[in-house]
């Protein structure tokens, strides 16, 4: 009986793993920056949100995504609401592609992801420079977008295994 209970709670935790991972990643902002690789950074929350909202994962609530954005702004030190808007726009983009797609194709999704993150990063850059007078290195944004795009396919494989585990 006790074993069954443990198994059940573990399974519950397993289904909530993506949203936990999202909160951990925005609080921790892990991107291997301490390795001091000059041209390496990526945005893990973008990958996570894009994948799980595209799959319409049941525990991936938009409200949590919105709150994760607020936390991200606080940790990074950006004006409040910027990341929330970015994350919500990703959700809109994935909801749109989900509505118009009959037969999903990972490669098409991948390139659509590139289009979405480029658009969102451009919007971020515009808001921060125009309305908040932030000085931002454009190269950093480009590098970040490129690596986020390239790493998406790797995380896609991992997340597919996870989804398979959840469905089983």
């Amino acid at each position: 009986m006790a074993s069954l209970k443990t198994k059940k709670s573990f399974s519950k935790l397993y289904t909530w793993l993506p949203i936990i991972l999202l909160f951990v990643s925005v609080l921790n902002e892990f991107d291997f920056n301490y390795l001091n690789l000059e041209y390496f950074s990526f945005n893990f929350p973008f990958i996570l949100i894009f994948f799980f909202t595209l799959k319409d994962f049941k525990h991936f609530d938009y409200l949590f995504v919105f709150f994760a954005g607020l936390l991200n702004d606080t940790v990074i030190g950006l004006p409040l609401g910027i990341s929330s808007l970015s994350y919500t726009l990703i959700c809109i983009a994935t909801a749109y592609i989900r509505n118009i797609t009959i037969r999903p194709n990972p490669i098409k999704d991948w390139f659509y992801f590139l289009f979405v993150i480029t658009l969102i990063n451009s919007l971020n850059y515009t808001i921060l420079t125009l309305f908040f007078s932030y000085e931002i290195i454009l190269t950093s944004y480009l590098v970040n977008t490129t690596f986020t795009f390239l790493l998406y396919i790797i995380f896609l494989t991992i997340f597919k295994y996870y989804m398979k585990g959840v469905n089983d």
Partner: protein
Amino acid sequence: MASSRDDFIIAIRSAFLKKSTQQKFSLLTLVFISIFIILLSSLDFKAVRYLKAGLSELVYRSSFIVSIPENFIKNSYQNAMEYSTFFNRYQKNKDELENFKSNFVSNEIIRYENQELKVLIDDYISSSNKILAKIIVDHDSPFLKSIIINKGSKDDIKIGTNIYDQSYLVGRVIEVNYKTSRVLLLSDLNSNVPVTIAPQNIQAIVTGTGDNYGQIKYIRSGLAEELIDESIVYTSGTGAIFKSGVPIGKLRSNSIDPSNRYNVEFYSDFTQLKYVYAEIITQIEIPSIDQNIFMTEEKIDEFSEAKLKILEDELKIIEETNIKFMEENENLITEINQLNNKISILNNKIFSQKQKINQFNIDTQELEFLKLNLEYGHKCRKSFLNTDGFNLGTEGYKSCVLNKGRIDG
């Protein structure tokens, strides 16, 4: 065509407004809320400021806890890298410490003199108190170079408080919460520091680059030519944002970018910061001499006593150094004597060897003469038949024998 446009509109509308069973808010609502919060942030409303301060308190602590595993990996990696150069750095630090100890005394004297002079010009005294702060969040973001420290308004931290790594400036506070604060590092793109470049005494502004070095900007035309490698960059205090005379870094020539010949290499490594000092400055007005002359005299006495103590310390250091020098001198004299002895022994050896060589040369010549004498002696000797010859033992005879019996002239 119309059908395709309808499909697009339906898909967009559905994306914005449709809520699946699990979702509590439509995306359009969330977009509006985000935009509303951004607008409030840009207008700097008090309510948003308080909300952000409250959120920051919670988030920074959570971030610190969540970052523990990553920090563990990061620290282990850095420790492993540090151990490889541990001994060399220890030796270097030991030497530097000796130098700093002696420099410290001179600095203290200057500091007291400065205070004394401020009293004389009826100014104010800035008493500063440096408090130690721990860095709780240090995400080296490529977009914003900032750190979070565990001291806030509770500890008298204000916006603009200067933050140090030992005596080196690392940045200033840009956001204050009750128990935490955000520090904008000098390396951030948005950081601008008025500086003086010594020894040329050039005024400039150092801006961050987003990397671990700074750039010199807003320098008067023509003065850039006067800059040299290794020049010291310290705060000028212009604008009263940063305290004057705080070291920042030194100039390093930059061969890559011709428009910017020199970069500022910061003394402090911002990626290795664990603890920093926040300087809490309180300005104390000095009462005028007429009003409270006794108090001022008392203060002057206090300064003089402190200065005297410093001078005594300096004297002690000088005496100790003198004793060390004398000991070194004695050692050197003994060494010189020993070396002189060695030199005289070696000279004797050389002389005896030279004598031996000379003797050997003479013997060789004698042997050669005797050999030739046996063969050609009869041709050179004066006799009845050989009237051109020479008498035995004469120089002519000798040269004739050495010429193998040929009689010259």
